[in-house]
C-alpha cells in the first residue's frame, strides 16, 4: 500500500534578524491562523534557531549561534530579515550597530546570508527599503537585493543563496501571515523554485493576484460609482488614491485578522507590496489626475478603453449604487423584481 508518506527530512533551521523596521511583520505573523504560527512551523518541519521575539536565548547566546553559523558549525537553512538594511551614515552602518557586538548589523546580515540555504526578505523594508527609506532616505536604508526599484541593495542583484535562488521578497507593509507561512512551508517541502517568484522576486502565490480581485467594492468600480470622502462605500480609485487595480496581492481573497482588508476597512490600497510605495509622489489618499482621468490606470488596461468604458458605465450607474457610493452605510438595498408589491 502506498501511503504517499513524505520522506522524513531533518528539520530546517531558521534564523530571524531584525534591522531598520518596526517589527510589525513579526507581530502580523504571530497572528497566523488556521493553524497558529507554532503549529505551522511544526507542520513545515521548521526549527527556529533564533527569533528576536520568540526565543529564550539572549545576548552572548545569540552571538554564539551567529558565530557557529558563520564558522560552518551550524547549518542555516533559512535566513529571514525583517526591516531595512541600514547603511548610513555614509555607508558606515552606524545607524544600526548589533547590540553586544560593536559591529554594524548590515555586516552580520551579509555574513549570515552567505551561509544560508534560502534568504527571505520579510516585508517591504527588507525587500526594497520600504518606509524606512522614505523622504530623502538620509539613513541610506535599502533592501537585501534592491534599493527601491533599483537592483543592488546590500547583497547585489547577482546574489544567490545556497539553493541557487535569489532573495525571496515577501513584500508587504506588513506581510499577511499567510504569505510568509506558505512560502516557508513550500521552501521546507523542497517545492519552492525559480518559477515561483515574479519580476520583483515576490512569491507568485500571492502576487499572481491584484488587490482588486475580490474587493467588496467591485460593483461600485464597475459602474464608476466613486467614494468622495474616507468612509464612503463607493470605489476609492477615482478620488481617494486607491491602487487596488494595480497592486499585486491577494488581500481581498484572504481575510486580514479574520475579517478585513484595507478596502474593507474603508481606506485605499497604497500598494504596499511594491518597491517605492513609500514615496507615491502624491498624497496617499488623493488620486492624481490629468484632465479628470486618474493617472494610474488598472493593470493591463489600455487608456482609451478605460476612458470609453468608464464614461459608458458612468452613464449607466444604477441609482442604488450612486446613493450608496457616497454613504457610510448601505442605505438602498437591491430590489428583486420577482416580488410583486401591491
Amino acid at each position, binding site marked *: 500500500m502506498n501511503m504517499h508518506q513524505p520522506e522524513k527530512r531533518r528539520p530546517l533551521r531558521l534564523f530571524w534578524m531584525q534591522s*531598520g*523596521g*518596526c*517589527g*510589525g*511583520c513579526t*507581530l*502580523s505573523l*504571530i*497572528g*497566523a491562523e488556521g493553524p*497558529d504560527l507554532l503549529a505551522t512551523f511544526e507542520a513545515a518541519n521548521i526549527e*527556529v534557531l533564533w527569533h*528576536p*521575539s*520568540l*526565543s*529564550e*536565548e*539572549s*545576548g552572548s547566546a*545569540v552571538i554564539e549561534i551567529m558565530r557557529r553559523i558563520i564558522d560552518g558549525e551550524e547549518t542555516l537553512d533559512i535566513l529571514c530579515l525583517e526591516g531595512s538594511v*541600514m547603511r548610513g551614515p555614509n555607508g*558606515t552602518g*552606524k*545607524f*544600526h*550597530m*548589533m*547590540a*553586544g*557586538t560593536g559591529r554594524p548589523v548590515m555586516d552580520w546580515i551579509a555574513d549570515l546570508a552567505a551561509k544560508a540555504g534560502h534568504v527571505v526578505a520579510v516585508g517591504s523594508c527588507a525587500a526594497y527599503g520600504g*518606509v524606512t527609506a*522614505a*523622504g*530623502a532616505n*538620509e*539613513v541610506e536604508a535599502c533592501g537585501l537585493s534592491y534599493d527601491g526599484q533599483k537592483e543592488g541593495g546590500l547583497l547585489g542583484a547577482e546574489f544567490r543563496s545556497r539553493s541557487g535562488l535569489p532573495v525571496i521578497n515577501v513584500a508587504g507593509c*506588513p506581510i499577511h501571515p499567510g504569505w510568509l507561512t506558505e512560502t516557508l512551508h513550500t521552501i521546507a517541502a523542497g517545492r519552492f523554485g525559480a518559477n515561483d517568484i515574479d519580476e520583483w522576486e515576490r512569491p507568485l502565490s500571492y502576487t499572481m493576484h491584484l488587490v482588486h480581485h475580490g474587493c467588496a467594492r467591485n460593483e461600485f468600480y464597475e459602474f464608476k460609482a466613486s467614494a468622495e470622502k*474616507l*468612509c464612503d462605500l463607493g470605489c476609492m480609485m477615482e478620488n481617494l488614491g486607491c491602487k487596488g487595480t494595480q497592486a499585486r496581492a491577494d488581500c481581498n481573497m484572504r481575510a*486580514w*485578522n*479574520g*475579517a*478585513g*482588508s*484595507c*478596502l*474593507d*476597512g*474603508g*481606506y*485605499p490600497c*497604497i500598494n504596499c507590496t511594491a518597491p517605492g510605495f513609500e514615496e507615491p509622489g502624491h*498624497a*496617499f*489618499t488623493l488620486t492624481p489626475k490629468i484632465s479628470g482621468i486618474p493617472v494610474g490606470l488598472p493593470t493591463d488596461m489600455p487608456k482609451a478603453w478605460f476612458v470609453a468604458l468608464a464614461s459608458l458605465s458612468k452613464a449607466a450607474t444604477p441609482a442604488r449604487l450612486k446613493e450608496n457610493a457616497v454613504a*457610510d*452605510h448601505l442605505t438602498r438595498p437591491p430590489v428583486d423584481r420577482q416580488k410583486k408589491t401591491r
Partner: protein
Amino acid sequence: MTKLVVGPFNRVEGDLEVKLDIADGRVKQAHVNSPLYRGFERILAGKPPADALVYAPRICGICSVSQSVAAAQALAEVQGLVMPPNGELAVNLVHATENVADHLTHFYLFFMPDFAREVYAGEAWHAAARERFAAIKGIAAQDVLPARAQFMHLMGLLAGKWPHTLSIQPGGSTRAVTSGEIARLAAILSSFRRFLERTLFGDRLERIAALSSASELESWAAEKAPESSDFRHFLSLSIPLGLNRLGPSAGRFMSFGAYGSGGTPLFARGVFENGVRALDALAIAEDVSHAWYKAHAGAMPPLTGETLPDADRTDAYSWCKAPRLDGGIAETGALARQLVDGHPLIRDLVARDGGNVHARVVARLVEIALVVIAMEGWVNALQPGERFIAHAKMPESGEGTGLTEAARGSLGHWLKIEKGRIANYQIIAPTTWNFSPRDAEGTPGPLEQALVGAPVRPGETEPVAVQHIVRSFDPCLVCTVH
C-alpha cells in the same frame, strides 16, 4: 569592578544593549543604549499633513494604533475636528484591542519565558514553569496564540487590518459597522473573556478588576492552586523570588490618559508622585546631552524640537533622547496609568514596596480586566446608522499635539504645519521616557536607575535579574528612537 555588555536583548520590541558596571555581585551603574536610528521625524518633514497617518503607525509594529491615535489627535487639533460618538467608540475599541493584545503578548511571550531559564533549574517550581512558559515550546504559547489571533478579529472588522491601519482619522473611523457586525464584535469579546477567565485569571474579570489591596490579592491567589491559572502561577513565583523588591521605580509616574469618551477618559491624565497632580504638558522637554544628535543649548520642548543625527559624538551612548518633565525623569506604563487613575490595588502595592517588577506585571494584568470590561460597554454603545467620522479641510498652517497611552506608556506627537506641509514633527514614545539615557545633569533614566542594585550571580553573562527588570517595562525600542 567588572563590566558586562548585555545584548542583543530579545523578547523586547526592537533592539537594545545594556552596559553594566558590577561590583560585589550587584549592578553599580547601567547605561542603556537604543542602537537603531531610522529618522521618522525627518521623513515626516515636508509631507502633506494627512500622510502622517500612513507614516506614523509604521514607526512601530506593536504600538501602531497608538501612533495613529496620537497623529490623528494632533491633526484633529489643527483641523478643529471633534469625533462623533461612534467614531470615538470605534477608535477606542481598536486602540484597546492593540493595548490588551500587547499586554497579553508581553506576559506570555516576552516576560514569563525567563522563569523557564536553566538558572532556575534548582527551584522546586522550575519544571512546572518550564512546561507552561518555556519560549516557543511551552504549552501557554499554544493556548495564547489562537486566543490572541481570534481577539484580533476585532481589528479585521473595525480597522481593516493590524498593524498599520489607516482607519483612524482625525474625525473618527473610516469603518462604519452594521448591527450584524456589532453582534460579531460582541461575540468575539465574549469568547476572549472566556479565555481570560479560564486561562489567564481563573476567575471573573470583575473579581480581578475589583481587587483592592495587596493582602486581598494574596488571599485571592491562595484560593486555588498556583497552576490553576497563569496569574496565580505568576504570583506564586514573583513573591518568593522577591520581584516586589527588584527594579525599583524612582518615584515619579506619568500618564497622558487614554480612551476618551465624551470628554472624559477611561484612565485619567496626570502625574503620581506621593499623590496625584495635574500634568503640565508644556513642562516636557528633550535633552540630547548623551544622545547621538547635534548638541544644542539645553533641553528643547517638542513643538520646537530638532532631530539632527550625529553618529560621531563620543560623549553620547544612545539614539534615545532624554525626555524630562519639569527637568526630572518620569516612569510611564500600566503601573503609572493605574497609579494616576487611582486603582486601589496598584496604589497599595506601590505604597508598600514602591514601583517594582512585580507591581508592573500586576498592573498590566489588572488593566487587561479593566479594559476588556470597558470594551464590552463600548460595543454596546455603538449606534448603527449614525456617523463614524467627521470631515474638515486641512488648514495651511497650525500646531497640534496628540497625547495618548500605548500599552507601555505615554506617547506624544507634536506637529507644526506651514504652507500646507508638515514643518516639524516630534515624537516622544513611552520607552523614550523609560529607557532614556542620562541628561545634562547626569541624571540616569528610569531603567538605568532601576537596574542599580540588581543582583548578579557568579558567572552570569546575561544576569537573570537584569532580564526581569528590563522586560518588566515592556519596552518598545523601535518606538523609542523612531
